[in-house]
């Protein structure tokens, strides 16, 4: 039931997103013309600008929502954030290397994303190696350690910025956005969403069993060791690609599972797909909001989600505190 409701909301948001922009165009006609390969204004605006932007917002949101729900379930900690895997910082470092060292010139606009993916992958491997047993406290500590390391390297890169423009470009990239990206970014994100999502969903029963702790999960015949690694791997793939493509979009992975949880009886296995759907919808809505703001310097998507997410987070902490008082 909740899947249907969230699915319909997602579809509605996508349609609104295709209709939102600075120029008035015939969306349906433009879409048909774009599919037929015609180069009319409508086709270019809808097919080359709005469609990639909408699809990217949806996939990035889905990746962040799903990875947040999976990590919170795995670590049994409602405050776990996808950034914990160290993947986001790793991706940022990879992208920074592109801006400064000019890596992957062949890849063109997708170069930061590819380097980001590489950075996320390296950070994640280091983290998994350091965490070893994949126990919950170790994953948090190892993720924090790797994030700190990559954060320090990123700061060093910023420190030695060759020119202020490169620095500005990087900082803006880090703030997170899904605009000015093409369908080639979707080619990076979609497989990641399938693989990462598949890994996480294959461990649904483990996440449910882990509600009662590792001992119970093991005694129920679930392999918490291997399974946890697969979940961390899946989450890191999702976060790594999302950050590589769209920069840091804060709070989505942290907040979305909280919004969904009451509707699925708090079950960590049932919160996964709805979190992906709700994450997709929320990021797309935030991106629509940005396009509706008065013209001028564009507010970055990551800044908006943080601005909206932080008060929501404070409210959650407040609610949680009242429960314990």
């Amino acid at each position, binding site marked *: 039931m909740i899947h249907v409701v969230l699915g319909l909301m997602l579809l509605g948001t996508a349609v609104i997103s295709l209709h939102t922009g600075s120029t008035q165009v015939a969306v349906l006609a433009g879409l048909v013309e774009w599919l037929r390969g015609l180069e009319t204004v409508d086709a270019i605006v809808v097919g080359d600008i709005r469609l990639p932007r909408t699809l990217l917002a949806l996939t990035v949101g889905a990746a962040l929502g799903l990875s947040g729900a999976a990590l919170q379930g795995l670590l049994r900690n409602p405050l776990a954030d996808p950034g914990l895997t160290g993947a986001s910082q790793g991706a940022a470092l990879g992208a920074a290397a592109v801006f400064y060292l000019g890596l992957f010139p062949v890849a063109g606009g997708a170069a930061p994303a590819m380097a980001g993916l590489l950075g996320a992958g390296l950070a994640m491997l280091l983290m998994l190696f350091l965490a070893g047993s994949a126990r919950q406290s170790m994953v948090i500590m190892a993720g924090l350690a790797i994030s700190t390391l990559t954060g320090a390297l990123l700061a060093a890169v910023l420190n030695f910025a060759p020119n202020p423009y490169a620095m500005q470009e990087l900082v803006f990239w880090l703030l997170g956005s899904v605009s000015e990206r093409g369908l080639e970014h979707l080619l990076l994100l979609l497989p990641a969403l399938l693989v990462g999502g598949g890994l996480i969903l294959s461990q649904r029963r483990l996440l449910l*069993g882990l509600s009662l702790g590792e*001992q119970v999960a093991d*005694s129920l015949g679930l392999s918490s060791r291997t399974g946890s690694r697969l979940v961390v791997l899946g989450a890191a793939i999702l976060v790594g690609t999302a950050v590589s493509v769209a920069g840091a979009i804060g709070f989505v992975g942290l907040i979305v599972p909280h919004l969904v949880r009451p509707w699925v009886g*708090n079950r960590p296995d049932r919160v996964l797909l709805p979190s992906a759907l709700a994450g997709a919808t929320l990021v797309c809505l935030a991106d629509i909001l940005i396009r509706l703001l008065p013209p001028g310097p564009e507010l970055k998507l990551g800044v908006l989600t943080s601005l909206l997410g932080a008060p929501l987070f404070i409210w959650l902490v407040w609610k949680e505190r009242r429960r314990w008082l």
Partner: protein
Amino acid sequence: MAVIKMTDVSLAHRLARVNLDLQPGEVLGLIGPNGAGKTSLLHCFAGVESYTGEIRLLDAALSDYSGEQRARLMGLLPQRCQSAWSLSVGDIIRLGRLPWRDDCPEKVSQAARMTGVNQWLDHPVDQLSGGEQARVWLARVLAGEPRVLLADEPLASLDLYYQCHILTLLRDYAQGERSVMLSMHDLSMAARYCDRLCLLHQGEVFALGSPAEVLTRENLLAVYQVQVQLDLAATPPVVSVIG
């Protein structure tokens, strides 16, 4: 034929060459001071700890079973249990069906009735008291209908009524092919409800046999270093510490 047969099972620093068996229809009580190895022993069966030596479950080595096959035959009730999420009592009990990959409503409601938690099926488990929760955790294991039920101090945090209730329930569960192995500290309860006792001391089996064979003044003095007054023929059996 024994349901479980343990031969020379060791676990670094915790168990040393333990030999033990569990018969069908039997309630076997694990007793011994803190740190004697009761929990470690139960964990070896349940797949939580890796051990050296051999454990045979029915007619095959335990290591030859897949995790799921083992979980269908053996259910573990750990000493301390807590739900990370505010799950409903029904969802917790359904967790016991995970190895069977079904939700079997009859078995879930039967387990809830047996433990007296059926009126709370839709309640969040974290709103129940400690004793009520303890019965929910037990219901979770019962729902899986394991051949061997392993319970690690199931009486902790229960009031006197429910201590008797749960022990009677476990006693009744061990019928036909089913057996129960539980660790406990209350020796007079152990003498009353268990068919056999295994007294563990520093990771080794100190004594194994009927309550009368195991609960002797000499054994208890050697293991617990206390003098006791014993009357196992009384109903209920008396094991009281003199000092």
